[in-house]
């Protein structure tokens, strides 16, 4: 029973990793680009949400009960920041100094955005963790003797719906086909009329949306936000993505859950200090045994997503 309880707990934790890992894998799969601003977007949505809930929204919407509105604004803010990042890292820097095979410029400039935004938030709000005035995280229900915290359970359902929706978008819609075409062969996609300059911002908007949602879910579930909250989540989501296989959405889902499980079980068995060792040990082990990850393609760079 205790084991089952731990598995349920890890599912809940893993759902946050899953959302961020999916954001990473989306950008890698479509644009072949490790977007380092992702942890910052995650933090940004939560911090803006907290600040608005704390100091009040414009129009006199003050008071903790407006937290859902505050988080929604935070998510939108994170999408806007993501679009700004696209302008600079991808459109301006890459077209000016790189070519279609250039990966280092977007990667390094996105890392620059990570550090700048994180430190701006630190300057604005301080480095302390802040209490988020959301719903009571202690609200629990019991299913057959297993305790489930209600907000976490709702988040998990939310994540499942989002991943299924994203997958549906990629598989069946015109936009999704365009994205997959760019992922596999940008040149052939271009010739058929898929416009990179129109579709790349969509990828970044989806990234901002996923990260913002993950940040909001985190704020609700753990009742605490801070300027450095993205760092830990970011590294674990990258580990989850690699374990699942680069560019695979379902791989990111499974990888994120596995990382959540590894974390909960390691804490349970060996204590919190060993978590990073276990998670990154798992990542290295995956690279040794199955470098393409659980669901990845053996030939990296071909036919992703």
């Amino acid at each position, binding site marked *: 029973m205790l084991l089952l309880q731990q598995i349920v707990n890890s599912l809940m934790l893993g759902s946050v990793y899953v959302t961020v890992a999916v954001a990473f894998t989306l950008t890698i799969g479509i644009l072949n680009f490790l977007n380092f601003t992702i942890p910052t977007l995650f933090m940004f949505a939560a911090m803006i949400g907290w600040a608005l809930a704390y100091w009040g929204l414009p129009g006199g919407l003050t008071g903790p009960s407006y937290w859902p509105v505050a988080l929604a604004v935070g998510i939108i803010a994170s999408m806007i920041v993501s679009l700004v990042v696209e302008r600079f890292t991808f459109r301006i820097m890459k077209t000016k100094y790189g070519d279609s095979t250039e990966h280092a410029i977007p990667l390094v400039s996105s890392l620059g955005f990570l550090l700048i935004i994180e430190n701006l938030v630190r300057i604005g709000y301080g480095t302390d963790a802040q209490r988020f005035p959301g719903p009571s995280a202690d609200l629990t229900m019991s299913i057959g003797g297993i305790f489930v915290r209600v907000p976490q359970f709702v988040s998990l359902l939310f994540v499942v719906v989002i991943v299924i929706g994203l997958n549906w978008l990629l598989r069946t819609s*015109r936009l999704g*086909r*365009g994205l*997959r*075409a760019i*992922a*596999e*062969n940008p*040149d*052939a*996609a*271009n*010739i*058929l*009329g*898929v*416009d990179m300059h129109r579709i790349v911002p969509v990828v970044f908007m989806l990234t901002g949306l996923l990260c913002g949602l993950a940040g909001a879910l985190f704020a609700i579930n753990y009742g605490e936000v801070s300027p450095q909250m993205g760092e830990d989540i970011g590294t674990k989501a990258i580990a989850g993505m690699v374990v699942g296989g680069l560019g695979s959405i379902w791989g990111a889902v499974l990888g994120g859950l596995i990382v959540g499980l590894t974390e909960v079980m390691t804490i349970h068995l060996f204590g919190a200090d060993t978590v990073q060792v276990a998670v990154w040990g798992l990542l290295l082990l995956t690279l040794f045994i199955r470098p393409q990850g659980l669901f990845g393609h053996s030939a990296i760079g*071909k*036919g*992703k*997503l």
Partner: protein
Amino acid sequence: MLLDVSRLDVNYGRTRAVKQVSLSVREGEIVTVLGANGAGKTSLLRGLQGAVRPAGGKILFDGTDLTQAPPSARVRNGMMLVPEGRQIFVSMTVHENLLMGSYMRADADVSRDMEAIYDRFPNLAERRNMKASVLSGGEQQMLAIGRALVGRPRLIMLDEPSLGLSPLFVGKLFELILELNKSGISILLVEQNTTMALEVASRGYVLELGSAVLEDDAAALSNNTALTEAYLGGGHGPAAGGTHAHA
């Protein structure tokens, strides 16, 4: 005049691959562009489709200036390029590949056109839900042409469609080109298989080192034996071999 190109310059990296080329395709015509490897044929087609932005000159399609327009605008106006090496999407199904041809179409008749493609290519219909990677080279070429057709083009530009195909498939391919042309689609054909290309085309241009050095009726070009020697790098033999693929 459907396609009217004047003094077109196209760069390939830092070198000028196409220099001051003027050419035209009339409605309903098959025009071929010949030339040795590296003569600039592929760059010419990529410049025409907008995959590379032309460095100079003018491209008029049915009177509309598309010189600096993105490929999406060219596709919307009815230009379609079937690129060298097919460039189909191997991670997608056959059906999804065909749908990519309709990317710029907003009307509701796409599914009817798709069925017409399947009627024309039964091999593709049988494999419509399989990954395109399972197709043979010939079938992949049919898929690439089918994908272009779903876009309802008025002009199809084919870049070396016979490359790597078996002699049997080359014959089928040129039959298909004639059929498409009869159905009203104009064709700009880049080929190394000079013999076959001149058999189906009404006019031809010869490119050398990026410049158009010769323009004539296909029949006149076929009889011009000095041509093959001088510009096409020889090796293609006299116009006798019928359906044989190029060397």
